């Protein structure tokens, strides 16, 4: 601990000179070197682009007729828009259910009763440790098989239901850990003060901890929802009619334009995810600006606790 008064960081004297942790502000020699490096790297990057485009051209992937379907209204209205609708429908339903699941099990894991805490923890850790794909397979075909063998009636699980339930279980478990970390990130003094003024356990949680934790958790929650949106593409494997399925199975079957389809579909996914990520960044800035919360924004990658299978920020399972 230093007793020296903290001095404010010196105002940037010259804006054009920027030193980073790794590189000092460049002098004339270094600037020359950087210019040469810029030239070389530009040439290398252009060469890579040229090789890729040449390959596309050689296999005839740049022909206009392969790209033309994407400027036709019918392609969009028959395939791409319903596909986006399917993806968003699954992602939205999954997100809502996962948030509920996360709150329930996140709170359950913090319960004072051991008979709630331990089962909730086991469920969360189990679903976090297994791949989403095998969960989807089991939810898709497991319940009918089991019900049949036990002589019970069970309606067939649709691809949509299987996908949404699996997304809920997997992402809900990750969200449960985020919630727990968020609540734990509120300094202990806050709940101690709340108890001291006579609030009960539920009041402390509802009035003190949750409002402050929400601010801190928001960015982590939104990045997990990006993951969920991307994970919904796994619906391809059980033939759910999502963007990947309509755009990358049905369109190429019709027009034989696999490469252009892949590029267009990828761009749509990227646009959707970037929109969500910008929302996350905006929320993070906002939560940092309003200093109402005593809790620091939490980072998904550093979610502590028994969670041994932590998720990286935005690292999806698919």
């Amino acid at each position, binding site marked *: 601990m230093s007793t020296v008064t903290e001095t404010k960081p010196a105002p940037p004297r010259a804006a054009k000179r920027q*030193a*980073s*942790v*790794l*590189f000092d502000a460049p002098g004339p020699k*270094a600037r020359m070197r950087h210019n040469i*490096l*810029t030239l070389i*790297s*530009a040439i290398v*990057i252009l060469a890579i682009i040229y090789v890729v485009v040449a*390959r*596309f051209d050689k*296999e005839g992937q740049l022909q206009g007729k392969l790209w033309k379907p994407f400027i036709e209204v019918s392609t969009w209205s028959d395939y791409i828009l319903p596909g986006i609708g399917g993806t968003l429908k699954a992602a939205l339903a999954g997100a809502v259910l996962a948030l509920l699941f996360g709150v329930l099990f996140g709170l359950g894991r913090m319960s004072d009763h051991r008979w709630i805490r331990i089962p909730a923890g086991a469920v969360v850790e*189990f679903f976090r*440790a*297994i*791949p989403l*794909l*095998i969960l989807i*397979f*089991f939810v898709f*075909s*497991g319940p*009918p*098989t*089991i019900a049949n*063998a*036990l*002589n019970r009636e069970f309606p067939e699980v649709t691809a949509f239901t299987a996908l949404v339930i699996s997304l809920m279980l997997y992402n809900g478990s990750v969200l449960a850990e985020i919630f727990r970390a968020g609540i734990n990130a509120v300094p202990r003094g806050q709940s101690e003060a709340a108890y001291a003024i006579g609030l009960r356990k539920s009041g402390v949680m509802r009035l003190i901890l949750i409002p402050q934790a929400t601010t801190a958790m928001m960015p982590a929650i939104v990045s997990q929802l990006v993951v969920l949106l*991307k*994970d919904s*593409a*796994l619906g*391809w*494997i059980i033939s759910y009619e999502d963007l*990947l399925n309509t755009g*990358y199975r049905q369109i190429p079957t019709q027009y034989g334009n*696999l*490469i252009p389809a*892949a590029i267009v*579909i*990828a761009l749509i*996914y*990227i646009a959707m*995810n*970037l929109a969500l*990520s910008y929302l996350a960044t905006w929320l993070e800035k906002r939560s940092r600006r309003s200093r109402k919360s005593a809790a620091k924004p939490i980072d998904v*990658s*550093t979610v502590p606790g028994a969670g*041994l299978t*932590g*998720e*990286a*920020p*935005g*690292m*999806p*399972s*698919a």
Partner: protein
Amino acid sequence: MNWNVLLDFSPLADNSDKLLSAFWANIRISVTVGILSLVLGTLITAMRVSPVRVLRVAGAFYVNTLRNTPLTLVLLFCSLGLSDTLKFRISHTPSINFFWLAVLGMSVYTAAFVAESLRAGINTVPMGQAEAARAIGLTFTQSLRMVIMPQAFRAVIAPLGSVMIAMIKNTTVVLVASYYEAASLMKDMFEQYGATLPIFIGFAVGFMCLTLPTGFFFNWLAKRMAVVR
């Protein structure tokens, strides 16, 4: 009533050799992808923190593209697009070809996340450390080697561990790139024996045997190497 669907573990025991070889495929892919994605991720990070603007932009483009594309699409592009349409074949033996295509797809995808963690690690090193290193006259390589990298590397272990665990779980998606591994085997066993609970539990435990120790290891390493600030 037929309780076998809930209690009968014999399908797993009967197919133990297949199980082992299927999980061995996942382990093989994980290890190869782990190494390749670390190499590629380091390269991308070097680009993203370099003083050359063109490289920074290219690195950011790479990371943003791959990070926001579903892995399913990346792998499908590798199998259907690269191999079948563009005739880009790594080997003439189909199984080897699909193995390397799956590894390629997963590596380029995972590298984007590795690059993000590495960059975040470098950003945790306070500016004052670098300034102090320059002030005592260390050259660029010296300050990198003795001051910045040791600190950045330690901060990176835990996030990198999460990336690797997610990568191990992601190896199931290579199913779409026509490579046979544990998830494909589970699907086949579901078709053969019906989707029973014991089969699912068996595969889930199999994956937990891969992910949990990896998590323990990285957690232990991160705690051991943590920098106290």
